[in-house]
């Protein structure tokens, strides 16, 4: 007998459903926020070294690419928060499968509204 598992490798066709993509979004947003937070605290820490250092950094954040990254970050933060609430209901209230695509769509909707509101505020 040959004891070989997963001879065909990862098959993405079995992952093509809302629950898996919600997991992926939650994981990506979680990792992104983990990387962002130290940078955020470093930026706030610039205030301790004087007004010029903080102002210099804030001027740097006016670049279009940094602004676009901030909008994406707000989207990920909102998605992680709303997705986390969804998970809490699944795990603590035992919410069943039938509602999940609607709940996941709502998570993406909330995140999009938050990101667009932030973008309008920047303009």
């Amino acid at each position, binding site marked *: 007998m040959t004891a070989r*598992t997963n*001879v065909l490798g990862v098959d993405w066709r079995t992952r093509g459903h809302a629950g898996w993509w919600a997991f992926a979004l939650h994981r990506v947003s979680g990792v992104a926020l983990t990387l962002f937070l130290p940078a955020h605290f470093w930026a706030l820490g610039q205030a301790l070294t004087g007004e010029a250092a903080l102002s210099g950094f804030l001027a740097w954040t006016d670049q279009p690419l940094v602004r676009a990254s901030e909008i994406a970050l707000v989207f990920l933060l909102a998605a992680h928060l709303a997705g986390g609430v969804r998970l809490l209901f*699944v795990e603590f209230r035992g919410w069943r499968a039938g509602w999940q695509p609607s709940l996941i769509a709502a998570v993406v909707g909330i995140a999009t509204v938050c990101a667009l509101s932030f973008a309008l505020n920047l303009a």
Partner: protein
Amino acid sequence: MPTDSLAARVWRTDIAGAGAFVSYVVPRSPSQTVLEVVTYIQRRLDPTLAYRFACRVGMCGSCAMTVNGKARWTCRTHVQAVARDGVLEIAPLANLPVVRDLVTDMREFFDKWARAKGHLTPTTTRHDPLARVAPDSDKRRAVDAGIECIGCGVCYASCDVVRWNPRYLGPAALNRAWTLVNDVRDGGNRERLGAVAGDAGCHACHTQQTCTERCPKHLTPTAAIAGLKRLTALAALRGELP
């Protein structure tokens, strides 16, 4: 290719265990199932093809395979529903060792049921009166929601956590544990909760819900695993885990 035939790509292994897809042309028939396609190939085209089935009516759970990328029970899967452009790709279940062609070794799958304490621990003997369980009680309803599992392995083969952590007990074994946790006749919950609380147990689940998405019996292993997460957490707080 005429539309009254089907191109079936079937995973075949050689004596050394190496595998590849081999193409067969199979005639279409009304209400044809994937299992009928595999059977046609074995009986008419190549008798060396190895596959497993028994009941053919969705009860025994032995004919599950990967059909066009997704684990399915082949006896109840119509070709019409899954064959895009008349092409069918049939492979063994993922996350299990391949014995030959489409046959997987299910030992690890069922060993995990035993590891999850998936057997009743009786609290009475045959001399005691039968237990009376109200059909509309919460616990009986929780058992009902998960008890129809046929052990086909579709959820196990679809689970990313099993792929990433081969020791993970998997959705079917945890679903079985949950039905016993809610069985008022059972006396083994302390050991059972201990068995499903470890690194390879319920807390490893990432709630991707592919098991629930793919279960041919429309069970919700995700809800069962969530229930075990709650109970094991409570038991840990109370210092009741062995």
